[in-house]
Structure formats: structure tokens, C-alpha cells
């Protein structure tokens, strides 16, 4: 039995099919990379999984139960954490307080007291490499650090599955290396990861499998190195003519 199973999920916005029947599974311990051109439906897919959108059709199963249409906070408490493509910290709080929010409200079982939540925050801040900046007001953080904070806040919920929406976008080469290191540490701590990424180096660097979305459908799925060489993928990104020229 897989940890997360997406079955034929569709989502329409007006006349646009953002998702047109996507199917895939995520096994415990996996790192799945989702790539695709702009507008392929990647973020819509994460929004459906985390409950911000309700799919129009299809089913989303978490282990044995369907989570389709559940309220976002219930899905979060089941153990599915996520980050946003555009970082969304709580602006009036410090780094540590922001992180503690995940521990305070996102835990499935016992209600943590604020003190315990802050301790938990300290632990995950070390994992993402923000330990020294824990008392900063969030607005003082640089963009890469804000992305780390997003990850920390999700990790504080002790998720079993982490959905990362372009945590590497806008980072330079050195910062990408550091972020990759962070993702590996998170994986090694036993968290299953689904990540959306434009930076191919990231997909090849950490993912065990890659899934290419195009026009709301699954185009190709498989090991990253093979997927990136697939003619259909090159077509989707660079056009048919480029793909044809490559083969000559």
C-alpha cells in the first residue's frame, strides 16, 4: 500500500482544465519530483492534495482513507505538510515563533503547550540551518532563509509527507547546493517528499522518481535521468522542432 495515491484527479477553473486526470502514487520514503512547463498544473496539484482546492473528479487517498474534500487543517494534522512557492511567513512573529506555529496546531495527537512548541521549533530550525537566526524577526530574513523557514514550519508539524513548492526558485548555485543538502537531511530523517521544481539539477540530484506534467496530464513518469531524455518531455519544454533536431 502506498502512502499517497492520486487517482484520476481533475480540477477545472472556468473553461480551463488545470488538471485533467492525473494519476500517480508515492511510496513511504520516496522523493518524487514533479516538473512541467509553466501552467502545467503543478501547484494546482499540490493545492488539491493539501485541501486548498477540492478536486472536481478523482480521488486522493492517504494510506487507506480518502482525503478528498477534507478541510486543509485536517489534512495538515494527518501528517501532510507543505510550503508555498511564494513564501508566506506570519510577519509579526520571529523565526522561532513562526516555526512553533506548525508544532502548536499541526500535530495530529496531543496538544503541545507553547513552551514545548518553541523547543520543537529550535530542533527543526537546526535541521534547516536557521538555528542561529531563530530570534530574527522574519522580515529580516533573506529570500533563501525565508524558504528554509517555510520548510521548518512544515517540519515542526512532524509530517510524514512534505510537499515542497519550488523551494529552490530564485536561489543561486551555492544556495541551491545548501538547499539540496537540507532536503537530503529531511529525507534521511524519514520524511517522504514530493517536490515541484524547475531546477533540473535538483530533480536529478535528490529525486528517485520524476513525474512530468503537461496541460494537466501526466506526460512521463520514471527515473529522473531517463525522464529528462524523453522526447515527449523535450517537446513539451522546447517545442517539436527542437526535439526533432536533437534526434538527427
Amino acid at each position: 500500500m502506498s502512502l499517497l495515491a492520486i487517482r484520476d484527479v481533475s480540477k477545472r477553473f472556468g473553461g480551463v482544465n488545470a488538471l485533467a486526470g492525473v494519476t500517480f502514487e508515492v511510496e513511504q520514503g520516496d522523493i518524487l519530483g514533479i516538473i512541467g512547463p509553466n501552467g502545467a498544473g503543478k501547484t494546482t496539484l499540490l493545492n488539491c492534495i493539501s485541501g486548498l482546492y477540492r478536486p472536481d473528479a478523482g480521488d486522493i487517498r492517504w494510506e487507506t482513507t480518502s482525503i478528498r474534500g477534507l478541510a486543509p487543517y485536517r489534512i495538515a494534522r494527518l501528517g501532510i505538510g507543505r510550503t508555498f512557492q511564494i513564501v508566506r511567513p506570519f510577519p509579526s512573529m520571529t523565526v522561532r515563533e513562526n516555526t512553533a506555529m506548525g508544532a502548536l496546531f499541526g500535530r495530529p495527537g496531543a496538544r503541545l503547550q507553547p513552551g514545548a512548541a518553541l523547543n520543537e521549533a529550535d530542533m527543526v530550525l537546526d535541521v534547516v540551518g536557521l538555528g542561529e537566526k531563530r530570534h530574527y524577526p522574519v522580515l529580516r530574513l533573506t529570500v533563501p532563509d525565508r524558504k528554509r523557514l517555510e520548510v521548518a514550519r512544515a517540519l515542526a508539524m512532524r509530517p510524514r509527507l512534505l510537499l515542497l513548492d519550488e523551494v529552490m526558485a530564485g536561489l543561486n548555485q551555492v544556495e541551491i547546493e545548501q538547499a539540496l543538502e537540507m532536503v537530503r537531511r529531511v529525507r534521511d530523517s524519514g520524511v517522504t517528499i514530493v517536490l515541484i521544481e524547475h531546477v533540473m539539477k535538483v530533480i536529478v540530484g535528490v529525486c528517485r522518481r520524476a513525474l512530468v506534467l503537461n496541460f494537466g496530464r501526466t506526460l512521463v513518469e520514471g527515473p529522473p535521468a531517463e525522464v529528462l531524455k524523453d522526447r515527449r518531455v523535450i517537446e513539451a519544454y522546447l517545442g517539436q522542432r527542437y526535439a526533432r533536431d536533437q534526434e538527427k
Partner: protein
Amino acid sequence: MSQFTQQVILGLLLGGVYVAVALGFSLVWGILNIVNLAHGALVIIGAYITWVLFTRLHIDPFLSLPVDALALFVIGYALQRGVINRVIRAPLLFTFLLTFGINLVIVSLLLLIFTGDFRSVTPAYSGSGLHLGSIVIPYIRLGGLAAALLLAGILWVVLNRTRSGTAILAVGADRDAAQLVGVDLRHMYALTFAIGAAFAGVAGGIISTFQSITPTAGDPYTLQAFVVVILGGLGRVSATVAGGLAFGLIEVLGQSAPGLSSSYANAIAFVVLVVVLVVRPRGLLGRLA
């Protein structure tokens, strides 16, 4: 000089009432982004509850304040969950229209139940006051100010020292991010509105001690709460307290200024509103937008 001191004291005492009225209004506006046009009607429900308890059961108006709070909390929770929640993500105009309608419904119901007669709550001490030399401080006004400051303290503690308060502030900052860290959004919306309504109820109880009440007596208070929030600034308890006290002072001192009278109360309020919006749009203590 003592004339001036007396006016300042009366201004602060009146300001206390405005603090009580504006606390709940400010909370609902700041967190839910709803300018609640039914706020004054909720205030008057509280005033009628105090009046009923006073005339039927001879309960002191200040002792009935917790009853007002509890009753309005329940009404507020139900109102948000059942009605207002349906337009929570709609543009501001929809919530305006809806709360305006709720205001009309509440006022009409109050007219049916209590008729349009003037009702007043007159405890034995209502005419007396504290005499300090030539200065007089009416007891009921002093009690009102004390109750208002206590309310502000309670709200601050709830928002800053409790789990639910933290969740409410998180919802106010970013509702999507809040629900994705596990905050139950709909419950927090309803809870926020319920607290706002409960505070309105207490304000109504305070108001009933010095003013005769009718079903429509709440309407001016919606306007005044609005001005207080603009004046003090949105997003902080201390800003509402500062705004309320300042507005009370401005109103009393303005009315006693040469050439002006109490009939200028609304005019003074609007002048304050415009001046603050032009000179300092974030209010006295408001957060930077």
C-alpha cells in the same frame, strides 16, 4: 482650570465607553476583514439584556455584564458560522451589505420584542459620584471606564497568551498559511466574531447605565467604533484603547469649545476621521499597512 480638568475627566470617562464599543469592532475588522455594520445592534442587544435583568430580577447592571458577554458570544458564534461565513471571502461590499441587513433584522426584532419605548437602567447610585474638590466623577461612568479597561486587558491576554489567540492572530495574518499549519479556519472565524460580539454585549450593558435605550440606539455606536479604529489604528489592542480615550476627549472638549455644542458630535467625529486619514492614515498606534 478646574472646569477644564472636569472636562478632561469626563472626556476620558466617555472614552472608556468608546473603548468598550470599539474593541470587538476592531477585532472583527482586523482579523476577518469585516466592517461589521451590525455591531451597534449587537451592542443594544446587550443593553436590553442588562435592562431585563435589572427590571425583572433587580440584578445590578455591572453584575449582568458577564451575562451579556455570554449571550452575545453564543449569538455571535451562530451568526458567523451560519450566515456571515458564506461571504467571508467575498469582496468587502458583500460583507457590508450582509451586516447592514443583519443590523436591520436585529433592530426590527428588538422593536417587536421591546417596542420603541425608551428604557433605562437606574441603579440607586446612578445620580451620585465621587467629589474631589469642585470636580465630580459619576460612579457609573467610572465603573464603565474600569470595565472597558478590564475588557481591553482580557482581550490582550487572550490574543497574546493563549493558543486560540495565537491561532486568531495567525488567521488575521494569512488565512491560507494558518490552515496549512493546522488551524481550523472556520472555527477561528466564528470564535473571533463571537468574541467581538461578546465585547459588544458588554459595551451595551455599560451604555444602558447612563443612556436610555431604544432598538435604534446602537446605530451611532457603529459609526463611533469606526472612527475610533481609524483614529487609533487597526491591529492592536493598545491602539483601540488609545483611539477610544482620545476620541472621548476630542468629543467632550470639542463640544465645550466656544461656539460649539453637543449637536456637533457627529460633525466632530467626521472631522476627526478625515483629518486622521489625511495626516496619519495608520492611526495613532496602528501597525504599518
